[in-house]
């Protein structure tokens, strides 16, 4: 295996040349529009990135799906807010005409057709000028594609050799450098953030059954992320092999221990979506009724925020120019706060928490999670296992889905390890669907492990079936009671 000795002084990322060179024009555009509209802001994005894939049968390199360059302007239209997304700066007059078209002509047309508008207060901002640039050890963009693909091919072969039953062992690496500026009458913000993802997917076939498992690494890291590869490959390979002999679970309610990945999924799906405060404005979230009330067992503390951890959900400011925070959502069983975008906050009369995020400059901002996790506790995993007469240790997941109004939860779990009389029996069940009523599940959390919190940011989060953003989730081991099927 090739070893790299390139660590040294951390590399600070830089705002893109394009945004640096055009900042003055953007300020000018905002200034001109401010003559016509009482609130104007502009978000400029310039994200570069590449995805590298290596499989048994080939390889691929392409620009990351997060790659974008463009702008969104938000203006107060007299009653609420209108937005215009574009990716040309050729004709500033044309941009201004388009903003007028959306915020004046379209609104007038809709009013003529009988549409009524929901009033929102005028945004008032304080002066703020700031910038943030994340750091990494090894700038991945400086490593040639040839070197990356060669290293990934070695890792793929290392994984493939783990079992004669493997039909593929896919390696996926993504490097993304986000550059953003936010400009308004009062604000002048800039940030550059680099994240990388590295994933290993083992696929095997035995006795006609196909099984697969994945393990991944993520973070505000550079090429150094590859250093953690081998243990992850070993684990992914072991998981596939174990799944060959997995049985189907007998549906029922069991004592469960969730590994940090599953705990993170529960934090995210069960609760995170339920406290997104744009859902409060629509009365779509049950969490609204529980602010200040007990919602979980006393073992439960939960956070979300751009500043709660250093992972893929970290930033200085969100896509509406609000600085990120560390929000304590649940504090020792009590629901303390939701997470909010700017417009929901002004509508609700609360403080924005810096969670207004867009899939891209082309999409609307919504209240979204960032880095979401349960805090660690004071129990040990060993004691958790010992405490269970019949139950399962749940490990890894494929997906989850929220239901904030009714507080239902759906988690597609990769596998469960059977526990009988305080011991792991070696029997595996897969796949496992964890469902239930969120307050019941959170109230049933009786033990939380003392381990260091681990977060994973390889995936992304959608709101319903759209609006994907990068988030991280995690925590430590938790013991609860869950309905499994």
């Amino acid at each position, binding site marked *: 295996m090739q070893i790299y000795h390139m660590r040294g002084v951390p590399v600070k990322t830089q705002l893109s040349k394009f945004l640096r060179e055009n900042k003055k024009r953007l300020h000018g555009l905002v200034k001109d529009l401010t003559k016509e509209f009482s609130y104007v802001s502009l978000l400029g994005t310039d994200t570069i990135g590449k995805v590298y894939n290596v499989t048994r*049968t080939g390889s691929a390199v392409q620009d990351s799906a997060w790659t974008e360059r463009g702008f969104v302007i938000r203006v107060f239209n007299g009653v609420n807010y209108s937005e215009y997304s574009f990716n040309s700066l050729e004709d500033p007059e044309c941009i201004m005409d388009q903003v007028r078209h959306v915020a004046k002509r379209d609104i007038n047309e809709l009013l003529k*057709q009988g549409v009524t508008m929901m009033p929102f207060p005028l945004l008032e901002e304080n002066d703020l000028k700031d910038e943030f640039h994340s750091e990494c050890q090894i700038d991945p963009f400086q490593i040639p594609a040839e070197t990356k693909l060669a290293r990934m091919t070695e890792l793929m072969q290392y994984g493939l050799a783990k079992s004669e039953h493997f039909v593929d062992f896919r390696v996926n690496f993504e490097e993304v450098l986000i550059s953003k500026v936010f400009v308004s009458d009062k604000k002048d913000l800039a940030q550059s953030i680099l994240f990388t993802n590295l994933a290993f997917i083992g696929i095997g076939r035995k006795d006609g059954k196909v099984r697969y498992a994945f393990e991944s690494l993520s973070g505000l890291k550079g090429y150094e992320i590859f250093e953690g590869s081998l243990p992850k490959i070993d684990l992914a390979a072991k998981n596939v092999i174990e799944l060959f002999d997995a049985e189907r679970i007998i549906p029922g309610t069991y004592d469960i221990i969730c590994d940090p990945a599953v705990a993170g999924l529960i934090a995210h799906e069960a609760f995170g979506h339920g406290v997104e405060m744009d859902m409060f404005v629509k*009365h779509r979230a049950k969490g609204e009724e529980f602010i200040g009330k007990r919602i979980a067992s006393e073992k439960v503390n939960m956070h979300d925020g751009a500043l709660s951890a250093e992972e893929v959900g970290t930033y200085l400011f969100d896509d509406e120019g609000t600085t990120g925070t560390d929000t304590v959502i649940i504090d020792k069983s009590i629901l303390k706060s939701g997470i909010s975008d700017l417009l929901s906050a002004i509508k609700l009369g609360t403080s924005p928490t810096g969670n207004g995020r867009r899939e891209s400059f082309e999409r609307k901002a919504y209240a979204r999670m960032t880095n979401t996790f349960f805090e660690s506790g004071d129990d040990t995993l060993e004691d958790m296992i010992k405490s269970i007469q019949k139950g399962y240790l749940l490990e890894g997941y494929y997906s989850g889905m929220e239901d904030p109004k009714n507080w239902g939860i759906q988690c597609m779990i990769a596998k469960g390890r059977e526990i009988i009389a305080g011991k792991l029996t070696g029997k595996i069940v897969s796949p496992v669907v964890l469902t239930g009523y969120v307050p019941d599940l959170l109230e049933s959390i009786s033990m939380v492990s003392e381990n260091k919190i681990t977060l994973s940011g390889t995936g992304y989060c959608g709101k319903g079936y759209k609006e994907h953003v990068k988030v991280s989730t995690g925590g430590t081991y938790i013991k609860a009671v869950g309905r499994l099927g």
Partner: protein
Amino acid sequence: MMNKLLELLKNKPDVDQYLVRAVETESTELFFIGSELQMNRGKNVSHIEVTVYRNYELDGKKYKGSSVARLSPLMDIEEMDAKIEAASLAAASVRNEYYNLVSPDQNQAPELESKFFEGDAIDHIAAMVKDLFSVDTQLGSFINSVEFFLNKSRIRLINSEGLDVAFDKVSGTIELITEAKDKQEAIELYEFLEFSDYDSEWIRETVRESLYKAHLRLKAVPLPKLDDIPIILTGEAVHEFFAYFRAKASGKMAYEGISTEKPGDLVQTKEATGDRVTMSLVPYLKNSAENTYYDSDGVLLKDVDIIADGVLLGYATSKRYADYLGIEPTGEMANIVVKGGKMTLAELKQTPYLELLNFSDFQMDAMTGDFAGEIRLGIYNDGTKEIPVTLGSISGNIKNVEKDMFFSKELQQKNNFSGPEIILLHHVAVAGN
């Protein structure tokens, strides 16, 4: 910009071939809370995706490397040049078995039709708003919130082999949240609708149906524990269920060794006593947001039968994997047509049964055949009465259900799926309360 880009590509000695996909999109978006407009948005964007190819030989074998670069109209020619140069360098390290690019087809593709092509987008979307809110709230259920997205795109595909096609396309989405409440409780249902044409009655009917389901969900009781109950899948879950069979016809999965069935092989057990799967792919389905007569490589798309009576007829695949497998490319198509079964809805609904009307997110794992979903709304017919139920989940594997699964004779058509209205399954695990 396109001419400059093509000039740039033609003058790159290292770039052996290229494919350019340019998309210009105008979008109008409205966001409602209740019946009040919360925000409106407009969008004018253009995107260019360039794939550069490098052909080379290694130990006497031909390979093709490729790399995809996304270009922006905000880039000057020097920056585009640098991006293409970097993509070309990366492509030289990508090692894939050799394949050919798509050659121009002499046949002309029909134009996609949509009422949205004529007139102003704001008028169209206002008409949809009227349709949607014109449905009377019934039985205590109402519209909580709704988002409208209407995109008109001009797509152009050009490659180094002389392909140069352009077409217009409309795709729209409506995210509809319906709610029902009484003194004790409030519930909601989530609908994600996709379309390509204006269909007033379809919008009204969809809202009516969602409001009715919301009303049922409010009355629903926790699903009891049920053993060996026949399961009925409906709506989107039926579409998702067939993803397993669609994957069996994937040329890519066959080439990668993930699926092993070959044309002529059964993709459904030979012991099947129920209905057998018959599936086609088509470039056009009424009101589908996936309609297109060209795939992303420029293959001219035509209707193709891929499975008949549980037997794989042939692979559906892109030009690349068709070359690998030595077959004619069908191109990649997202519109799926599945033939209905022998029995009617009434014949299939022999009590008792559990009919599932709405899931949190029903999923079929096309690789393993595992399927599962949390139940938001179901109807449990115990033989004497119909009881709306909620909470709980189902899970199963295709190998356990393919023997005696039945498809309704009646068909549904929703976005990019046309097929049986329901599927009746046995041997599915149900987690109740």
